[in-house]
């Protein structure tokens, strides 16, 4: 049991990013408690905390759950985990407990918020119903990620199609006659059943392959052309994959999955908690799309930075030419991801309801944030997430709330300085990236070895 509990805690606190997010959520929670006290001099006319908790902390919680689900998938692929008896059972139990704890804390937050003051900004459901809904959705999310990235292509595609169908039927789920009959416990039971099925497979299955490797199957890779140009070869070495199109396609798939998951979650929330009072609002789903190119280009640029060592001797280019190649590649990837994702977001802003929230400002903010994300990626020679990732996330989500809170015309005018600041930040980061690449010392950024202390720590956790 101790091992299960330890695993559960590890899922939420292993990386620095997870700890930062947890700390941020706790701070928000504390602030909310303080400002809802009767003695607090805060203005009562408009209380931003419901939105902060509902939006930022909610998004942080979703990210934490997704990160822990991803951790489970990654750890499952480790040879050590496969070899140690019962380790998979402990991991599965730990993940179950982690979702249970998260749902309990989430339900507690929602209840505190919902019952804090009259009139309540949102008409929340019962404590039990909220908990059951959160728990069911969290379990579904974890299982879904394992299945989508799992060894069976049929299951992966099937899950994606299911998610797409579910999101298409969102409008149906939001009909008042269906909303009037919440069945949260059914959702929780279904989540538990899905979890049990997954665990039964997981403890008996052969070691699952490392995530993403299973996605690289297909003709393009196995039977691809043997004759390649020098430029293509350089790109392949920088990206670690045969082509830029393929990498961008993977990123687009991931972000469309997230998008669909958020839409499905919103539909479930509408169905089970908010009932009639919650207006149809796709803003969080749209912001996921806006966030896609930012993270995508950050990831691809980071991959190019870490792979650049491969080309030092092979390619023959000096460091400045290597930098120029990687930079060009990153901008091309941004174009390949940004046009479709920002394009779909723009269409959704135009045609889907978003409760009167001005989405134009977040859209401009996210577009102008992409150069900074690109150059932060080019600066990241280490094979791990860094705090810059969190900073990008906060800026992107902050843009949404800034658009919400600032109402005076002068204030709104001032807001438009922010995109310019972000562009300037991109310029500064570009200068830093050039400087680092021109004198890059790959020895300082040598990948963690399997035998190193940090490598062992990761494997153990």
């Amino acid at each position, binding site marked *: 049991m101790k091992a299960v509990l330890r695993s559960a805690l590890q899922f939420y606190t292993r990386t620095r990013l997870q700890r930062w997010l947890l700390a941020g959520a706790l701070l928000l929670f504390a602030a909310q408690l303080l400002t809802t006290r009767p003695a607090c001099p805060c203005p009562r006319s408009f209380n931003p905390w419901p939105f902060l908790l509902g939006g930022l902390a909610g998004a942080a919680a979703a990210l934490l759950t997704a990160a822990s689900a991803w951790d489970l998938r990654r750890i499952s692929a480790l040879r050590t985990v496969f070899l140690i008896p019962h380790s998979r059972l402990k991991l599965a139990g730990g993940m179950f407990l982690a979702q249970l704890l998260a749902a309990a804390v989430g339900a507690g937050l929602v209840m505190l918020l919902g019952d804090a003051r009259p009139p309540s900004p949102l008409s929340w459901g019962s404590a039990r119903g909220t908990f059951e809904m959160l728990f069911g959705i969290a379990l579904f999310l974890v299982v879904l990620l394992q299945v989508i990235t799992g060894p069976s292509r049929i299951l992966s595609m099937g899950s994606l199609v299911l998610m797409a169908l579910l999101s298409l039927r969102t409008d149906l789920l939001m009909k008042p006659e269906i909303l009037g009959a919440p069945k949260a416990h059914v959702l929780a039971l279904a989540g538990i059943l899905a979890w049990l099925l997954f665990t039964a497979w997981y403890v008996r299955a052969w070691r699952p392959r490392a995530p993403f*490797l299973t996605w690289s199957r297909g003709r393009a890779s196995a039977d691809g052309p043997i004759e390649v140009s020098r430029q293509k070869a350089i790109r392949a070495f920088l990206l670690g994959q*045969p082509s830029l199109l393929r990498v961008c396609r993977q990123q687009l798939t991931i972000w469309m999955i997230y998008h669909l998951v958020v839409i499905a979650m919103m539909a479930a929330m509408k169905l089970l908690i908010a009932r009639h009072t919650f207006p149809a609002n796709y803003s969080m789903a749209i912001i996921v799309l806006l966030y896609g190119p930012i993270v995508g280009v950050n990831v691809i640029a980071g991959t190019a930075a870490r792979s650049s060592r491969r080309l030092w001797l092979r390619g023959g280019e000096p460091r400045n030419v290597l930098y120029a190649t990687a930079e060009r590649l990153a901008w091309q990837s941004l174009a390949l991801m940004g046009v479709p994702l920002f394009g779909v977001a723009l269409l959704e802003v135009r045609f889907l309801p978003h409760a009167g929230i001005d989405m134009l400002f977040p859209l401009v903010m996210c577009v102008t944030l992409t150069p900074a994300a690109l150059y932060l990626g080019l600066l990241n020679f280490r094979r791990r997430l860094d705090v810059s990732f969190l900073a990008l996330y906060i800026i992107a989500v902050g843009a949404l709330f800034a658009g919400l809170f600032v109402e005076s015309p002068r204030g709104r005018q001032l807001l438009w300085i922010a995109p310019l600041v972000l562009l300037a930040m991109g310029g500064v980061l570009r200068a830093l990236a050039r400087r680092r690449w021109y004198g890059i010392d790959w020895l300082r950024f040598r990948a963690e070895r399997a035998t190193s202390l940090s490598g062992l720590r990761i494997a153990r956790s």
Partner: protein
Amino acid sequence: MMDSGNAGGAPANNPSVKGPSVDGSAANGSPVISLRDVGKVIGGKTILSDISVDIEPGSIVGLLGKNGAGKTSLIDVMLGFSPPSSGSSRVFGENSFELPAAAKRRIGFVPQQDELLDSLTGAQQLALNAALHPAWDQALIARLIGEWEVPLDRRIQVLSGGERQKLATLLALGHEPDLLVLDEPASSLDPVARRQFLRELLDIAESPTRTVLFSTHIVSDLERVASKVWIIRDGRLAWAGDLDTLKESVVRVTLLARDAWPSQLDIDGVISRRDEGRRVQLVLTGWREERQREMAERWGAEVSVERLGLEEIFLELHS
């Protein structure tokens, strides 16, 4: 510090041992690799210190050291992946950190952690490398693929450690480099495959113009292949010279006296000392035959001398 003109087997500051310089300038023009007072500090920690050594063309040099001794760091500095914090590193006469393309084309490198692309097949990976090298020798590669039994039709992610190692080595050989650097090349091979691999390595290095430097912590590998040896300990070069000279230079001497031995013995080049009553065992460097007679006369003791294998020398140097 290793100086070019150092005399063979000369004793050094205990316990470091200095051998003759592997100085190519005397033999065959300029050295392939030339390091002068190279030091490397990362985050305040000294990784390499005071390394001066040359490699002459055509030699097979084994770089020996414990895990974490600095072998990979030295190779990284040597090949320009990392600038030295002090001193200078040159390859084919060029500054390592700013190697021109022409010099890079003459280098083949197999890193400790292979840099293969998991999502490709072996054939695709070879094709990518071939695209980067105008002088890719497909015939040589085809021959080695057959001899080493490297599966090219399978995805790299499903290859065993040994198969990956062989493929990585093939990639470094395709453009027929003048300098081949292998960082722990046989570490993931089984004993049979390792023996075969080392035999192939000898074949590859047969060309008088090809220089091979390989790092290892497996002493038997080095003994089988290398003609020169560098021993690195705590970031310092403890020995650089001919393997045979090292073996001749370092011996275990047993002295048997009538009385107990004083705690301080005035003997040059002591690496280690073990006292057992009237018997004292010393491991010495810079050994010459005449020293046996000198010792016997000086202390009136029975002196017996035992030659050591490379593994024992390595262990003594690290004791």
